[in-house]
């Protein structure tokens, strides 16, 4: 064949149109992995660095709480449910107790409600500090981990001084909070109220927490590389978030000013002045930023609550053996991770007939197949970290 301009042109075109045969690879991220917040398995099909199908496989931490609670009495259920979202232990107990008290039509003393509120906000600060520690670590910055966890120790020490446990307080009782007994006592006489110095110590700790939030913000917020990794990554439109049930800081970062503390009355939040923090874009940076600001708001709420805490009983009068009358109710609360709710069906017995636990991370995690489509592998880590879920909360 003669080689002329036309032939050469044709040959060059043929070269270009032959595609390189590449295979895509199935990559298992997890269940043991440094960044999956627990035992989560993502089956990702990747083509080079771009993944185009991510399926989460969960259930490695399924402990069967809903079935377990059917064979337990109400006080026994409170011993296990603070292990659902173990990072913010106290916040898991409150909606359940409120649901049981609603069915019993109990009036909880104000002092107990204020104490519940203070401890819930401390749980929120603790959870958001863990997020601030682990999220930059997943992006590669190792130093905010130490700053944030150091502050968290203050909060955990306070929690331990009043409840006896750092992570799993089990401090709620039907009708209020647990009255403190003297040590070594085998009688039921209430000896003291809260530990001496708890309220003053909490006030000081909140001031230190506010300072450290400034430090964290200075370290992380203007860092160009963090901005490059998180700005515009993993944008979550509010309509999609609502359809999937994504709640909490994730929803607020997409611009929806929805905070259950303002709309529900499970705790007396209406007495306090705090902002609902929202952001505009719904990307990873906004989710990080919203959580950082929420620490500030929680510290302010705690300071206001300490200043105005009323005196009174810690627990209403309840019978020794608690039977909750027949009925059903659903109580939802603003947990650090999102909306946590308990749907309680009672048949008049000592334990629930059916307890459905609506956990925030379950819905937050269900958005992963949608949000992870067509993005790069490092962004998987960035987006997963910014959704801030805990596998105990997902699997229950």
């Amino acid at each position, binding site marked *: 064949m003669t080689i002329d301009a036309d032939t050469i042109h044709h040959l060059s075109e043929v070269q270009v149109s032959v595609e390189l045969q590449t295979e895509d*690879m199935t*990559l*298992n991220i997890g269940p043991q*992995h*440094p*960044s999956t917040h627990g035992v989560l398995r993502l089956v990702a099909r990747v083509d*080079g*660095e771009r993944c185009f199908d991510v399926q989460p496989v969960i259930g490695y931490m399924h402990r069967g709480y809903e079935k377990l609670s059917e064979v337990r009495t109400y006080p026994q259920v409170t011993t296990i449910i603070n292990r659902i979202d173990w990072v913010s232990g106290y916040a898991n107990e409150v909606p359940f107790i409120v649901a049981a008290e609603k069915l019993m039509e109990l009036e909880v003393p104000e002092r107990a409600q204020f104490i519940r509120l203070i401890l819930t906000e401390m749980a929120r600060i603790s959870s958001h500090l863990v997020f601030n520690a682990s999220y*930059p*670590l*997943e*992006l*590669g*910055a*190792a*130093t905010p*981990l*130490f*700053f944030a966890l*150091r502050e968290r120790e203050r909060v955990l020490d306070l929690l331990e001084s009043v409840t006896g446990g750092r992570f799993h307080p089990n401090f709620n009782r039907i009708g209020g909070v647990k009255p403190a007994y003297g040590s070594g006592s085998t009688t039921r006489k209430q000896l003291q109220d809260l530990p001496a110095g708890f309220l003053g110590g909490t006030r000081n700790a909140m001031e230190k927490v506010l300072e450290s939030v400034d430090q964290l913000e200075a*370290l992380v917020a203007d*860092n160009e*590389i*963090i901005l*490059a*990794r998180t700005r515009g990554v993993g944008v979550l439109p509010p309509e999609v978030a609502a359809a999937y049930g994504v709640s909490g800081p994730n929803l607020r970062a997409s611009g929806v000013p929805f905070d259950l503390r303002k709309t529900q009355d499970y705790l007396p939040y209406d007495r306090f002045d705090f902002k609902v923090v929202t952001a505009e874009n719904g990307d990873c940076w906004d989710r990080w930023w919203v959580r950082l600001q929420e620490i500030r708001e929680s510290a302010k709420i705690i300071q206001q609550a300490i200043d105005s805490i009323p005196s009174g009983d810690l627990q209403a009068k309840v019978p020794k053996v608690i039977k909750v009358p027949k009925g059903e109710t659903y109580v939802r609360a603003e947990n650090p991770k999102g909306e946590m709710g308990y749907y309680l069906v009672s048949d008049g017995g000592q334990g629930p007939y059916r307890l459905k636990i609506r956990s925030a991370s379950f819905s937050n995690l269900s958005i992963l197949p949608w949000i992870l489509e067509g993005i*790069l*592998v*490092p*962004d*998987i*880590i960035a987006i997963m970290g910014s959704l801030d879920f805990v596998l105990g909360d997902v699997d229950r």
Partner: protein
Amino acid sequence: MDLLADLFSNFWVSLGGKLLLVAMMIPLVGMVIGFAEMKLSAKMQYRVGPYFAGGRWGWAQLIADGVKFFQKEDIIPDDADRPVFKFAPILVLIGTVALLVVIPFGPSLIFRDLDVGIFYALAISSLSTIGILMAGWSSANKYSLIGGLRAAGQLIAYELPLVLAVVGSVILAGTMSMQGIVEAQIEAGYPYVIFQVVGFVIFMIAALAELTRIPFDMPIAESELVMGYLTEYSGFRFLFFFLAEFANMFTMSAIAATLFLGGYWLPGIPEDVLEFAGPIILIAKVFLLVFVMIWFRWTFPRFREDQLQGLAWRWLVPLAFVNIAVTATLKVLL
């Protein structure tokens, strides 16, 4: 003294001595810098760092780590490509050790003053790249493979700015021999960093990327790929990689100090004092640069692969070209 001088004038004896010295320097330098990293990072994070090993300062920590690595079981994955797997860490270490040959520690303290000193240094440091690729491929592990692929892209991309950044210094000095560049700076009376700031910054960034240190840590990416191309390495093979990273920090900083900061020379110090003080001055400059590298590692998160490549191709390479053009023009005119 005469006996020693006679002994060392024999080529083979002096060669053996030099080899021994180089072989001892690498672990020593690696341990010192590793220890510095542990203590400095602890200081930046409100911690204490190594405390118990060897008394109050924990100075024996890395010696203990070395011994620990040596006595571990040698695990090679079943599906791994055995010869490649075994040879990869050695290749990385060779790339590092061979760099020490051309670094001038004093006016006559250099292992071998090659005429193409800097050219040789840059060429031989790319051997480590092949070693990393071999490690990633032969490990029979998808995470290692991804790490190896990322390393391929990153290391090749950052070779260019590394090479182009030193051209400015070479133009100013007029020679590629490392000793010659230092002597040119002594003659000129100022370290080249004063006019080659751009080149210096580009070189340091590219050196960080060649070392795969944070912020250019994608091939390892501990929180994503477990350990990237190093995932399957344990025991003394991992020790080779580990030492190679720290020793490479030393050698890259030494090259930067030689080309830009004046090497073993400080203004105002006479020649004969430099014979003794030269190494100390050079090591001081090197540790300054190493401190900056450690500081960056613990402050910044890591770049994503495409951002990293964008930085290299769209910013560093054009800047380096502009730097060369300006330097050459000014050298001709002035």
